[in-house]
């Protein structure tokens, strides 16, 4: 009975995801598409939760739906009139994209079957569980992300930094909204400390339960976005030097740890198991700061107005 009810819930979720995805692609206007995409992200987060992957569910809700949604809405606000005109792609483009997507689906299906049914190799999950005690943390997801496959996470942080550099060179940031009315200002003032607290909790709890640097960073960035929306001018970005340091801190500390393990044991990012817990916390701490900085600056859509005093920008 219980399993049956859950099956219906899953079915509804799958259908909802498909309908929302198709709706987002074929929406009347960009505005509708963005809103449908945000709702799609929330349903995907629910689906991850149902698949017992709370780490991914948190990341999807915070980054995929929350911050990406804020980014898209902000981009929508900035567009010039006429940008909304729907442009039909040429046929060869549609065919090319369709072909690539089909190839990707086939590849993913093959990988899935290989992992699920192949059984030629030992499933990766077992290997992770067997070596978990050496990783310094008790949450298998964090163990994989920050220890066994730390390389991937370092590259992810680098990609984020590269994206940030691209956005920073676009021009000056969006100006903050006008100051909020007392009611909204009070609510925002109430919510921001809660978001910071929740971010710190997620960072700390990542060692033994779902959480970690990306989720924590997204929450901190959300607090900054909220301050920006409420026109809280006392929440200023730090000055040039400190902002630059914050943006590269995650990558820098991660690389430093990697290089020191290279010097110590001869293998890049091979964390010694005695120190692994502390090192992971150190990396995650700085990664959280960098991720929050990057996500917020990407939301602002440019560099701070004071970034380069010699350059003259028209006030946005």
């Amino acid at each position, binding site marked *: 009975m219980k399993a049956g009810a859950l099956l219906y819930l899953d079915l509804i979720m799958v259908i909802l995801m498909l309908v929302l995805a198709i709706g987002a692609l074929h929406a009347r206007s960009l505005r509708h598409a963005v809103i449908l995409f945000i709702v799609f992200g929330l349903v995907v987060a629910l689906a991850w939760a149902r698949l017992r992957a709370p780490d991914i569910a948190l990341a999807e809700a915070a980054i995929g739906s929350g911050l990406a949604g804020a980014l898209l809405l902000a981009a929508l606000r900035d567009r010039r009139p006429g940008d909304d005109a729907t442009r039909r792609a040429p046929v060869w483009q549609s065919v090319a994209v369709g072909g690539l997507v089909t190839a990707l689906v086939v590849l993913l299906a093959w990988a899935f079957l290989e992992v699920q049914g192949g059984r030629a190799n030992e499933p990766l999950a077992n290997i992770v569980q067997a070596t978990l005690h050496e990783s310094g943390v008790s949450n298998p997801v964090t163990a994989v992300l920050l220890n066994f496959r730390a390389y991937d996470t370092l590259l992810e942080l680098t990609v984020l930094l590269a994206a940030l550099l691209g956005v920073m060179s676009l021009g000056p940031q969006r100006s903050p909204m*006008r*100051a*909020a*009315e007392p*009611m*909204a200002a009070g*609510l*925002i003032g*109430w*919510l921001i400390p*809660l978001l910071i607290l929740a971010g710190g909790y997620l960072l700390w709890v990542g060692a033994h339960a779902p959480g970690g640097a990306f989720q924590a960073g997204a929450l901190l960035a959300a607090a900054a976005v*909220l301050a920006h*929306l*409420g026109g809280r001018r006392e929440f200023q970005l730090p000055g040039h030097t400190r902002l630059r340091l914050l943006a590269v801190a995650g990558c820098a500390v991660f690389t430093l740890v990697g290089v020191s393990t290279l010097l110590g044991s001869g293998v890049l990012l091979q964390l010694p198991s005695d120190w692994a817990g502390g090192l992971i916390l150190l990396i995650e701490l700085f990664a959280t700061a960098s991720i929050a900085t990057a996500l917020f600056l990407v939301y602002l859509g440019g560099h701070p107005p004071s970034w380069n005093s010699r350059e003259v920008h028209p006030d946005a």
Partner: protein
Amino acid sequence: MLDVISLLLIFSGLAFYLAGTIGVLRMPDTLCRLHAVTKADNLGLGLLASGVLLQLSDPLQMLKLLLIWVLVLAASATGGQLIARHTLDQKPNGDPPEDAR
């Protein structure tokens, strides 16, 4: 007895959600729709949470459920204010707020 109260609370919560959804679909403008949907968020979720609360035995879980409700209240109130502000700013002939940009 507890189950009956629980069911009553949950169904009245669902009724608020239904009313809120109908409101979002049928109300004429953004502010009215906002008014409808915040009722679903606040009262609907509150009733739903209290209904589920009666089924729990662990006080920690109860506390978590209450916390979720309070957090959703704070988030939806803030979101509602921000959406309303944006709507008022955009309205060409509506009554603009005193300190508009």
